[in-house]
């Protein structure tokens, strides 16, 4: 509405939009194209967009070269556990952050904001030392612990927003009806929060599924490593990579988060909109 109208302006806008579409889409299309190309075409000096002779060999080879299934299982365990634990412990705290006022809520909020600025090195070195003493290096449990805490600021922020969207009158009414604190929370607030809790959990899952730095530092042996770490093994030494299997594995690793993201995308962008209205 702030842009000029008129036919020439419209044409310009479509041209600009088209340029954006190309810019956003082409790396992803190239990844797909590479994933389905036979080795012979990848070696050719004149690569094409559409494989002449599309093949699934790269996918087969990817599974042969690296323990992808094991890695996917590790990623799944870490991401599901982290997401479930995170929302379970974050929901009550988010409730307090949204409904309570006082030093506790202020401090929690302050921490959520400040935690955004941590450089992870400063946290990971001591964590590494502590987890090492607890024999939790090269263990998925150690990683899950880190992921839980790492996803908490986001989970708290998102959930506190959802709590604030629940009208307090409902809770007051339940209290007047004689429901105790716990009952009010469980039978009145929790059901209304459920969609928000699910969205938050899915987002925490995606973040953990995609995470690389902590997994790289904490997991040592290939049979314990998560998908993003195992993917880097395809890169080999100094860029001598088997491009086809690399692209195939990379594409597969993206699918779960892409699918889940498509589901919750509206909620997240919606949440951002509400945040913008109030912020």
């Amino acid at each position, binding site marked *: *509405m*702030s842009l000029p109208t008129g036919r020439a302006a419209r044409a310009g*806008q*479509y041209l600009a*939009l*088209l340029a*954006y*579409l190309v810019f*956003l889409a082409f*790396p*992803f299309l*190239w*990844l797909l194209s590479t994933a389905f190309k036979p080795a012979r075409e990848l070696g050719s000096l*004149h*690569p094409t967009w559409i494989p002449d002779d599309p093949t699934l060999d790269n996918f087969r080879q990817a599974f042969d070269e690296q323990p992808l299934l094991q890695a996917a299982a590790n990623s799944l365990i870490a991401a599901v556990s982290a997401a479930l634990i995170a929302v*379970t412990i974050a929901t*009550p705290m988010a*409730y*307090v952050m*949204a409904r309570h*006022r*006082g030093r*506790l809520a202020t401090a929690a*909020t302050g*921490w959520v904001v400040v935690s*955004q*600025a*941590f*450089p*992870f*090195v400063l*946290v990971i070195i*001591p964590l*590494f030392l502590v987890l090492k003493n607890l024999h939790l290096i090269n263990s998925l449990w150690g990683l899950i612990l880190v992921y839980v*805490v790492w*996803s*908490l600021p*986001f989970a708290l922020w998102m959930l506190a927003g959802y709590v604030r969207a629940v009208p*307090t009158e409902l*809770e007051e009414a339940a209290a007047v009806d004689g429901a105790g604190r716990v009952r009010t*929370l469980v039978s009145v607030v929790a059901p209304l929060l459920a969609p928000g809790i699910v969205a938050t959990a899915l987002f925490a899952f995606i973040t953990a599924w*995609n*995470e*690389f730095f902590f997994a790289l530092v904490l997991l040592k042996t290939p049979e314990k490593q998560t998908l*993003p770490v195992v993917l*880097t093994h*395809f*890169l080999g030494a100094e*860029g001598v990579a088997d491009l086809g299997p690399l*692209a195939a594995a990379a594409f597969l690793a*993206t699918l779960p988060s892409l699918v889940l*993201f498509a589901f919750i*995308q509206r909620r*997240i962008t919606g949440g*951002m*909109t509400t*945040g*913008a209205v*109030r*912020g």
Partner: protein
Amino acid sequence: MASEVVKGRRPRPGHPRKGPAATGPTAIGPAAVRDRAAAWFLVLPALLPILILSVGPLLYGIALAFTDAQSGRTRSTQWIGTLNFQDLWYDTLFWDSFRIGLLWAFGVTVPQFLLALGLALLLNQRLRLRWLARALAIIPWAMPEVVVGIMWRLVYHPDAGVLNETLRDLGLGDGRDWLTGLATALPAVILVGIWAGMPQTTVALLAGLQNTPHELHEAAALDGAGAWRRFRTVTWPAIRPIALAISALNLIWNFNAFALVYVLTSGGPGGRTRLPMLFAYEEAFRYGQFGYAAAMGCVMVAVISVLLACFLVGRIRGGGGER
């Protein structure tokens, strides 16, 4: 990374509401959290892990910066005062990486903001294909950073990559080895950084645009204000808080970036893309210099605090007239 944007967008939880003065610190809450004990009980399950695994390590990390802690050493760790910081001061490699980190952070954040603003303005129009652009704009957000890095390595590949092939087709030379060229490596990874962070920035700005009052636009148009003028007087003031917040966060996240560049270049060629995080990671986990790496982390925190402070000043200075 994706997760973090939303945080910036939400209202500050726990911010005191305006209204009649409450009798006690907790008097506005419903019965469920009216007393302090209940609040603590609800907070504890999350608070303990936060204290033990986040605040604790942070303080421990700062303490480590003043020790000679190393990995796999039998002799016990000693306090060495500010020796690590003195060494850092004379470590030209560190300051190189620091400069590269700032170049990268601003080099990504500024063009990304302008591009995202353009896209957000377009997506706010009634254009065909808008849905497609919205869907595509989301993809980089959902992708693991490692995959984004791998994908762009395929694009930049000297022989099998689409970039060089396109340049050859256009007759613009034989192409080059973008990620290993001394001059091209940093611009090449900056372009990837811009691409990867477009969705969050675009969505945040779009959210701001959709909340600008239409009436104001129409009134301004009736008064004969041109597009630029309407942008400057109506659109920009409305999205300014969001624009500032997202840019500050982007600067911080980019300064702390790791995975993308680790996968693309591992900091090469010759350290030309060695961001501070990559440097500290190598120092800590390749060479085992925990104390020294922790000192680097402290310096990074200091710089980020300065960035944050600048942002807050900007916000306070410009925020007064808007609300």
